[in-house]
């Protein structure tokens, strides 16, 4: 009780102060401190973890990116922006950026489209729909590395199940992961297959939240089919769409495990994303500074895209 009343009182005071009335000095600072302390204490464990494991490494990695950093060396060679200049002149970097963007755009678009289609088709709560929904959702809860291994085995051109089936029907085995032209589409397919259940569940929840009266009213106005979707369903589930799009974009820009397990960036760098390149430079070639520079470029890219997406969706909200 006491905490609640203090909070509301101070809230009122804050409003008053913003309004321009003279602040009441004297007792306020001490009272404020009493009110602040428990909040900080409660947050302290999380803040400590964030500071130690997230904030500090982020700042530190930027420092690394300015050196030719070697783990544990007594002195590091200062490069300034040398790593970044090298990066922007490195054809492997531009290739990795291209692959990452293609992967992100294609997998996010397909996941949204298929996730929405599945959610719309499986909206009703029959036992059959429940089973199908679970089947769609199941890959989402399995670890990416496991999925990558299973698919790699299935798609093996010589001993895999898929090429076995193709051969049975008289076709030639396809080099899904060995052909540079097919490897990226194949990895995108597996990623969509895994994640479409996640999108489906989010959109399903959103679809169920659309008030039935809206549809009734629209039908009375003569709307049906696509117009119903376009003018009632989609605007109503926009927050869920925004959430799904942002999460998926951020995740797919950072794609690593699936690629690492399925192709390790190959063949011929056809599936080499920014994170697999970063891993290779950092942990195989031991160029920590260079890898940190890649990490920062990726960070900037994600920040930029997330800001754009937020802006885009908010702008239409105001509209």
């Amino acid at each position, binding site marked *: 009780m006491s905490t609640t009343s203090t909070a509301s009182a101070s809230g009122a005071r804050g409003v008053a102060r913003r309004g321009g009335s003279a602040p009441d000095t004297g007792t306020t600072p001490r009272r404020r401190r009493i009110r602040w302390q428990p909040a900080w*204490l409660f947050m302290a464990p999380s803040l400590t973890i964030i500071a130690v494991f997230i904030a500090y490494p982020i700042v530190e990695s930027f420092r690394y990116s300015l050196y030719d950093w070697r783990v*544990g060396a007594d002195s590091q060679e200062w490069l300034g922006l040398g790593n970044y200049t090298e990066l922007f002149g490195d054809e492997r970097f531009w290739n990795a950026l291209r692959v990452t963007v293609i992967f992100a755009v294609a997998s996010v678009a397909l996941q949204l489209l298929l996730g929405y289609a599945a959610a719309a088709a499986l909206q009703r709560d029959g036992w059959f729909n429940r089973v199908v929904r679970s089947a769609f959702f199941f890959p989402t809860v399995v670890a990416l590395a496991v999925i990558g291994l299973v698919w790699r085995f299935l798609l093996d051109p010589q*001993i895999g199940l898929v090429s076995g089936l193709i051969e049975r029907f008289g076709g030639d085995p396809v080099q899904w992961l*060995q052909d540079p032209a097919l490897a990226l589409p194949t990895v995108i397919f597996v990623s969509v297959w895994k994640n479409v259940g996640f999108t489906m569940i989010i959109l399903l929840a959103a679809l169920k939240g659309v008030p039935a009266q809206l549809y009734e009213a629209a039908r009375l106005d003569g709307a049906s089919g696509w117009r119903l979707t376009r003018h009632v369903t989609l605007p109503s589930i926009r927050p869920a769409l925004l959430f799904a799009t942002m999460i998926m974009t951020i995740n797919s820009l950072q794609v690593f495990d699936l690629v690492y397990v399925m192709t390790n960036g190959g*063949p011929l760098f056809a599936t080499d994303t920014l994170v697999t390149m970063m891993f290779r430079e950092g942990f195989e070639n031991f160029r920590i500074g260079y890898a940190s520079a890649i990490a920062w470029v990726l960070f900037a890219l994600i920040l930029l895209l997330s800001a754009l997406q937020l802006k885009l969706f908010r702008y239409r909200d105001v509209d």
Partner: protein
Amino acid sequence: MRATRAALLAIGTAAAVTLAACGGSDDDGGSGEAAGPVALTLWTGFTGGDRAAYEELIATFNETHDDIQVTMEVQPWDTIAQTLPSAWGTGQGPDLATPNFDPNVIGRYLETDSLLALDAVGDGEDQINVDQLAPAAVEAFTVDGELYAVPANVATLQLYYNKALFAAAGVDAPPATVDDFRAVAQQLTGDGVYGLSLAERETIQMWPILQWLDGGDIVGDDNCSVLDSPENIESLTTWAQLVQDGVAPVGLTGAESDALFSAGQAAMQLNGPWAAPGYTDAGIDLGVAPVPTGVDGDVTLASTVPLAVSANTDHPEEAQEFLAWWTGVDAQKQFALASGFPPVRTDLADDPELAANDVVSAFAAALPSGRLYLQGVPNATEVDAEGYVPLIGEITRGEDVAGAAAAATERIDAITGCQS
């Protein structure tokens, strides 16, 4: 106010629990060290079929040494590559480790002074007998006159062949020369069978052997790429053409290449001793033959895994005693018989028990002609990942060999710092 007190209480309790937990583990570490035998930890990446042989070796060591107990932690090579540099670079981590399967990795760890220079060298009981160890490995692990690792193992690649497929095609013996090799590979190709199972990446390299057989090479003594020389272009063109003709599959990883041979869909493969048990289990009628003779005589690829001691270990003497035992006669004999690997010692060549073992003797016989991949080349790992592997990928997919070799040369020269 009540909230504050409750919060403080909660945090206080949490802190107490945490401190108690920390204290507990400290106590354990302290008492264990003071009273019992010296405990050494060893990180290795031996996750393959040969793992059991290493584990037996450790068990034997612990049984015969009351004063030293070694715990081996096996983890994938890429996990070691991620954690060991920072662990050792900051004075933590295991006492002993095999940092990578690539012997060239020693240089990386020396940059950060992470390795102990081995000084317990000699022919005494607890000393590392360098004179009896495989010379190529000793050379690879010696920098500026100091030895920084011993070979955890030494292996050579030999020619595995499927006797059933050979018989079906009417070929009665494995190929003896490089020309035979190509001819037999072509002859055995067909009906869903490849003449040769070749891997291009994520493996111990097979392609350098093909080049060496034709007298070619990758990087010269001056650390400059020789891939774009006319002889190398000719050799690479010949082999790439065979791949494009369907004699060998395109773009396989090491595991995929092994699976192909295991499935009886390839007649030949260049591989190390670790592959033999798997092929026998898969029911392959397995033959192991020497790599065909090249234009300059016998040659094959040798590989060795470095076993090194942390510069920051508290027990340098015990750690070196362990290395001395590991490379000793008894341990190497036990290991060779259990794993099929040739012993890391040269003085076991005539041991009757080892000579009677077909696999061991086959791989041991190739040791004198074994060459290490990119030995002594600066930034060798990067040369492999950024230069050689992409080149093989390009030419087996039909890219112009001369153009691809020139591009690879430029890239490799930049990585090695060659002044051409």
